[in-house]
């Protein structure tokens, strides 16, 4: 049976299981007294953590990691030092909790969100899966190979990220456990002072992306029905909330994630998924969630698509980027290449020169010098 089939089938299988009776963690010190099967599950989770590090699957931005961890600590102050948040370098929409207190959120998920309250919604939900030992409950109910150990067992050789993402998909719990995570996570949001009206919006954004990009992944946060359940669940909770005041911390979130968002766009282009960039950025409302440099990536996406009229659209997008952030060098390079290809050497040289001025240590400096020299020789012809 292929990985994907297991990934698709297992959540359905899991959802139908009855959960066993498992005591929740009452305090962080409870983790010191776990034994037996639960201890083995904990150990397997720690091995999984190590594999993520060894395989370089983590997004290593210390500042961003510190920020995300600080939000988790705000939500679960008593578990500070027990719950560790990691960021996985993957464009897929996913986040998941391991039974040892490791909680992972994908870069793709972070880049889709608009503010800290929305990120906190996801983290609060995942935190409940850990504190309430949902993976252990699910494992006991299966009475056979656990979903988690199945995932771990599958991680062999390279590449392994497929397996890692499979594990994430396996972490779609039963409806009851997910509702429990929504409800208790929501309480955490309220208590931490977040704007709880943002919680259903979080999943609405994700659902819009799933629909717009026609995402077919089986992961919990990219599953259409699962997201609809979350929207309904959080909308109900928000409507009944005691307090409608709270903060969304949009500026803080945007400042912390702007580089990540641009890197994600770059990653999409690097793997040839220009259509994803076009879909993500085509609406002006969506572009507002991205820094203005995103216009450069939009231009690149048009250039790569190369449909009728796309050359003009790409140039327009490069110019918007230059106007908004004159010190951001990549659009100058793109404009230089554009003019070189259109036999306008003077303009090409001007843009290439500006590019080198802004990025004197660019990795492609050899090419640009070569192009300047080529453009200079074009001048005489």
């Amino acid at each position, binding site marked *: 049976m292929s990985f994907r089939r297991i990934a698709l089938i297992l959540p359905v299988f899991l959802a139908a299981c009855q959960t066993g009776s498992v005591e929740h963690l009452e305090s962080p010190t409870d983790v010191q007294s776990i034994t037996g099967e639960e201890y083995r599950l904990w150990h397997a989770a720690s091995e999984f953590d190590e*594999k993520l590090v*060894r*395989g*370089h*699957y983590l997004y290593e931005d210390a500042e961003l990691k510190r920020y995300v961890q600080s939000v988790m600590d705000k939500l679960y102050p008593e578990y500070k030092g027990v719950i560790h948040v990691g960021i996985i*370098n*993957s*464009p897929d929409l996913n986040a998941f909790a391991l039974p040892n207190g490791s909680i992972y959120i994908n870069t793709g998920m972070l880049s889709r969100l608009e503010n800290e309250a929305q990120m906190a919604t996801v983290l609060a939900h995942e935190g409940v899966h850990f504190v309430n030992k949902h993976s252990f409950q699910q494992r006991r109910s299966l009475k056979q190979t656990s979903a988690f150990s199945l995932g771990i067992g599958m*991680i*062999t*050789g*390279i*590449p*392994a*990220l*497929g397996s890692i993402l499979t594990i994430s998909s396996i972490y779609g719990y039963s409806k009851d456990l997910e509702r429990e995570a929504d409800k208790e996570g929501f309480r955490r949001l309220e208590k931490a002072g977040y704007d709880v009206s943002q919680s259903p919006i979080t999943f609405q954004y994700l659902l819009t992306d799933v629909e717009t990009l026609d995402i077919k992944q089986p992961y919990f946060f990219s599953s259409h029905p699962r997201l609809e359940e979350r929207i309904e669940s959080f909308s109900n909770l928000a409507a009944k909330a005691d307090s409608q005041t709270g903060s969304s911390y949009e500026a803080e979130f945007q400042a912390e994630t702007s580089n990540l968002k641009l890197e994600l766009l770059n*990653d999409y*282009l*690097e*793997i*040839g*998924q220009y259509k994803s960039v076009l879909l993500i950025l085509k609406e002006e409302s969506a572009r507002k969630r991205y820094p203005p440099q995103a216009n450069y990536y939009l231009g690149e996406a048009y250039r790569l698509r*190369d449909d009728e009229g796309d050359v003009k659209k790409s140039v327009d997008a490069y110019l918007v980027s230059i106007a908004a952030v004159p010190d951001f060098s990549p659009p100058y390079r793109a404009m230089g*290449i554009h003019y*070189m*290809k259109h036999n306008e050497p003077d303009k090409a040289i001007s843009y290439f020169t500006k590019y080198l001025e802004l990025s004197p240590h660019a*990795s*492609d400096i*050899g*090419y640009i010098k*070569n*192009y300047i020299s080529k453009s200079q020789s074009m001048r005489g012809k």
Partner: protein
Amino acid sequence: MKSYGLLIFIATMTLVLSACTTPAAWKSIDAGGSQYANEYYTAVLPTGWMMKDADDTLMISRDGPDLQRIVIAYVSLEEALSDEDKKSVSKMLPSELADKFISELKSSQGFDLPSLTILSNEPIPIAGHTGFKLHLMYSTDKGLRIEMLSVGFVDEDGFYSISYSAPAIHYFANDRDQFTSVVSSFQPK
């Protein structure tokens, strides 16, 4: 560009990145002489190595493909352009070709090579053309660091790439000169 990339990568990347082997048998380079020629190109191969020649792709190694391998691949423009993509590969600038090569490398693995690092990316004169030369590094799941050098260019007939990969420790430095020699001797027909 999808089919183009696919062609290159079915032919090349599985061989460059993994120990995946084609059905063709290994044979000694010395047996046929170090001057290699096929329908598309000629090159001088290192003596004492083994070669495996399948379709338009040639793989050579001395100690086994896990320890070092050089892969030479050719894709005709006719094949490259016979897909939905309407862009002319022959008009791509070397940096665009390098970007495309990296893109295909990453997409062929579906983000499964997150450790892929570009150590250098520069133009290189090869066989009368300007091509790209990439120096890359990535780690396997078990933490083994692999270094890779790839040279590629396009002419009026097709796209050519020559890639060398080996574990960063010990092996990569050992046979880097052999790769340089193969690249220097390479000539499209």
